[in-house]
Structure formats: structure tokens, C-alpha cells
């Protein structure tokens, strides 16, 4: 009996660590079919004894805090009722858990619990607010304002609105990534229904002057939506101080579960939205569909933890970020930090290494999980549109890397990353003919690359 248990547990453990068995056999058979040829392209998944890379990509997603998982598990195992079931204890306990989570989220941003709508993530919240507000007030107001550095979901929603007949202005940003308040004021027209500007940018970490924008929009009677997915839980957020009407929050950016988010919708003065999802009228009719209790509970717990740990995390992240930037900039020349150096969230650092190609640097830094640009644009070869919007040179935009520092980052990880980065940049520059030319004193910009 004991022997069977041991082999069973060993098999379970082996299948859980690393590649699962069916996939391994598929990869092997694929290799075997290529007769005699060496396997030139290694399998993208980690081998069993290969060490895991360090995680330095906290803007893409964050690991779940153990306290969040602990709050979620009872609702995954035992308290599995539908929160909208009104007739039995399973429903009641589930509903009270969801309401408790709603209060936790509301407390973090300084809102009333009745103003929080649970969604499937910040993308859905962004879609809901832009499409919902624009369509509801379509009769009288036809203009939407946003910026060029917004998240893809906001830009894509605005594009759809354009196709529906709305007028959309994409505000340019200054070289430091911030928007010009004067320009915004001039762009607001009497028929503007919504202004959408994100609080903290996910690629360059720049923090927009949300309070000023909020006051401006309120004075002109325009609704103000902000995508605060990267800001909530990391910097102090207060929707009443900032005069924000709509705010999108994402669960998996604040050490919560993936697949849940929230939309803050102001009640006084009331913001009316045309719902995206129709159905049983859950979430005040704004978002029908069963609220996923375990995810909502996890999200609430993550918000509560974020509120308690905000100051501690912020101090730590600032120290680590300064350490990383100082060390890199002191060792290698020609490194540019994209975005305003002061008006930023310190945990998102976007550095451009001149004369080094970004993708090759990422490949070389295979022991560190980094990204150049955002996760949603990392599949295409084009440099990030955010960097283009802040006016970075084409070659600098190609060679940018985003370092993300979060709650769980340690000093050792930062030191390791810095060391590897310096080593690889030096090595790649040695190989670069452009670098040679620069060392000889030739001005790259004066070279005529084509000859006729």
C-alpha cells in the first residue's frame, strides 16, 4: 500500500514539475520524425532541471500573494454557491463574501461600495466605460478625447467608436510622456462626452496629473475615465479628490487573481452607462452575469492587502528601482530612461540601450523574464507605439527594455539582473559595427545609408 502511494505521488510530482507527460511525448515524436537532424530549435518550455528565470515583468502580471490564495480557496472548495441565489445558505454566504470584497475594493480607492461593478478585468472595464458612456449620451454629445499612449483596449474601443460615427481626438504627449493640460483644455468642446487618460502608463511608468485633469473635466462638465490598472494599490488613489467619474481596476496587477477586475462608476453626479453585457440585471444592470465569487473574494483580499502594504511596498520599490538605475547607468554609457524622471511610478523602468537591439538583448538575458514594450504588443516586430508617441528615435525605440519591480523582488534579483544586463550589453556592443563607428567619433546621424 505504501509502495503504491510512493510511486503514485512520485508520478504526480514528476508530472506537475516541468513538462507534463503527453506534451513531452509529442515533442519527442516530432523530433524523431526529423531523421538524423539535430534539434536546432529547443522546446520553449523549461527543461526539468533547468533553473527558472527571475521574474522582473511585474507590469505584465503579478504573482498571487499567498494571502490572496488563502482567501480564495475556501470558495473554490466548499462555499461554491451562486451569490445571486437568494433562497439558500450557499447563496447567502457567497453573496456576503462578494459584498465584503466589494467594500475592500471600494476602500482602496476611496469610493462607496455601491459604486463598484465587478468585471472580467480592466479590458472589459475600459470597453464598458468608453462604449457605454459614448453610446448613452450619443444624442447630444459626439466627441471623445484620449491620448496616444493609452492601452490597446482603450485605443481599439475608440477606433470602434469612430466607426460608429463618433469623433475621437488622440492627444499627443510631450517628450516626457505627460500630456499638456493646456492642449487638453483647448481640445475639449461643448459636445465632448468623455475624456479617457490612464493614471500610470504600463510601458514607461509615467504618472499623469490626474487630479488636475479631473478638476478640469468637472469644470467643463465632461466625464473623466481613467485606466488605473497599473496605479491602484501602488500609489494612493482617491476618486473623490481626483474628481474621477469612471475608473478601471485590474485584479492581476495587484497580486490578485487573473480574470477579475472592477469598474468604479460615480453615483453623485450619476454617470449613466449603456451596458455591454445584457441579461439578468446583476451588478445594478450594468454587467449581467454571475459574479465569480472566488475571484471577487481574491480581488478584495488583494485590495485590502495592497492598502495595508502600500507605503511599505512603495518605499522598497523606490529603493530597489534607484539601485537598478544607478548601477546600470554608472557602468554603461548611452542609456536613456524613457518617461519623466519625477512624475512616475518607480517600479516600472523603461531603459533604451543605444546601439543594441532590444530583442537580442532580451534573448541574451534569458535568465531574467523581461519584456520590451507591453505584453500585448510583444508579438509584433514593430517598436512600441508608446515610445513612438513620446518621440523616441526609431533606433532607441527598438532597443528598449522594461524592468518591472514589485512586492516580491529581492535585492539579489536586482543585482543579478543588473550584472547580467551590463555584461550582455557590453558583449553586444563589442559585436556592433555601429558602436565601433561611434567609438571612432563618427556621427551616426550624418551617415547616408543608401548610395545611388
Amino acid at each position, binding site marked *: 500500500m505504501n509502495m503504491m502511494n510512493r510511486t503514485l505521488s512520485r508520478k504526480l*510530482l514528476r508530472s506537475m*514539475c*516541468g513538462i507534463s507527460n503527453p506534451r513531452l511525448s509529442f515533442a519527442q515524436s516530432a523530433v524523431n520524425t526529423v531523421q538524423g537532424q539535430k534539434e536546432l530549435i529547443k522546446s520553449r518550455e523549461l527543461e526539468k532541471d533547468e*533553473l*527558472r*528565470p527571475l521574474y522582473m515583468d511585474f507590469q505584465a502580471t503579478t504573482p498571487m500573494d499567498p494571502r490572496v490564495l488563502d482567501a480564495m480557496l475556501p470558495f473554490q472548495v466548499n462555499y461554491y454557491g451562486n451569490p445571486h441565489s437568494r433562497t439558500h445558505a450557499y447563496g447567502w454566504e457567497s453573496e456576503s463574501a462578494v459584498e465584503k470584497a466589494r467594500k475592500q475594493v471600494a476602500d482602496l480607492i476611496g469610493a462607496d461600495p455601491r459604486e463598484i461593478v465587478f468585471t472580467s478585468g480592466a479590458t472589459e472595464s475600459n470597453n464598458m466605460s468608453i462604449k457605454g458612456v459614448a453610446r448613452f449620451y450619443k444624442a447630444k454629445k459626439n466627441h471623445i478625447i484620449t491620448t496616444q499612449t493609452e492601452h490597446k483596449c482603450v485605443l481599439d474601443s475608440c477606433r470602434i467608436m469612430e466607426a460608429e460615427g463618433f469623433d475621437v481626438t488622440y492627444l499627443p504627449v510631450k517628450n516626457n510622456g505627460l500630456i499638456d493640460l493646456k492642449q487638453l483644455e483647448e481640445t475639449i468642446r461643448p459636445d465632448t462626452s468623455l475624456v479617457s487618460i490612464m493614471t500610470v502608463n504600463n510601458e514607461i511608468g509615467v504618472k499623469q496629473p490626474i487630479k488636475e485633469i479631473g478638476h478640469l473635466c468637472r469644470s467643463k462638465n465632461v466625464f473623466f475615465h481613467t485606466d488605473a490598472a497599473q496605479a491602484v494599490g501602488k500609489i494612493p488613489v482617491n476618486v473623490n479628490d481626483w474628481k474621477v467619474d469612471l475608473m478601471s481596476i485590474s485584479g492581476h496587477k495587484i497580486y490578485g487573481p487573473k480574470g477579475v477586475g472592477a469598474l468604479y462608476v460615480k453615483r453623485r453626479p450619476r454617470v449613466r452607462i449603456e451596458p455591454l453585457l445584457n441579461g439578468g440585471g446583476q451588478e445594478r444592470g450594468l454587467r449581467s452575469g454571475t459574479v465569480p465569487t472566488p475571484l471577487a473574494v481574491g480581488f478584495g483580499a488583494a485590495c485590502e492587502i495592497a492598502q495595508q502594504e502600500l507605503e*511599505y511596498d512603495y518605499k522598497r520599490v523606490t529603493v530597489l528601482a534607484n539601485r537598478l538605475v544607478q548601477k546600470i547607468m554608472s557602468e554603461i554609457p548611452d542609456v536613456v530612461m524613457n518617461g519623466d524622471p519625477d512624475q512616475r511610478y518607480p517600479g516600472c523602468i523603461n531603459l533604451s540601450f543605444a546601439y543594441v537591439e532590444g530583442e537580442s538583448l532580451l534573448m541574451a538575458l534569458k535568465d531574467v523574464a523581461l519584456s520590451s514594450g507591453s505584453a500585448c504588443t510583444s508579438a509584433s516586430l514593430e517598436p512600441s507605439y508608446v515610445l513612438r508617441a513620446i518621440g523616441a528615435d526609431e533606433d532607441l525605440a527598438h532597443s528598449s527594455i522594461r524592468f518591472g519591480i514589485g512586492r*516580491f523582488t*529581492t535585492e539579489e*534579483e536586482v543585482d543579478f539582473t543588473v550584472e547580467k544586463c551590463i555584461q550582455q550589453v557590453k558583449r553586444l556592443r563589442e559585436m556592433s559595427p555601429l558602436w565601433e563607428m561611434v567609438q571612432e567619433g563618427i556621427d551616426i546621424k550624418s551617415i547616408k545609408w543608401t548610395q545611388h
Partner: protein
Amino acid sequence: MAASSREHVLSLYRLLLKESKKFPSYNYRTYALRRVRDAFRENRTVEDPKDVEELLRRARDSLALIQRQVCIGKMFETQKTVVEQEEQKSD
């Protein structure tokens, strides 16, 4: 009463650190150790017995939480990170 309470706090502290060391995940382990140390250091000078009781209750809850999460982490263990290998080598 004060002496035994101090002993109590210290033993809780030692227990928390002992349990935190068992986390299989590098990030969780280092975070738990660091956070426990900093939390106890920060609240070193708290005098009010009600506050102390509240903090101790939170510490006991955290201890149970850490024990549960260590268990779960061990069930779903995966490879070590690159930084740990260097730690082991230097040890």
C-alpha cells in the same frame, strides 16, 4: 505578566520565521521572512495592551496562513530560480 508576554511575542516571532523558511518558492520565502522581521521591528514600541493583543492575533493568523501556504507550495513544487542556485553555491 510583562515578562511572559515578551517571551510569548519572541516565541511567536521565532515560529513565524521558522515556518516562513519552509516556503519552496524563492519569492514567497524571502518576502515572508522580510515582512515578518520588518513588521515585528516596526511594532517594537507599541505599549497599549489592546493593540498588542490585536497584533498578536494577526501574527497567529499569519502563522496559520503561512503553514497552509507552505503545504500548498510543496504540493505544486517546481524548479528553483537562477538566484537560488548561486545562494546554494555560496553556502
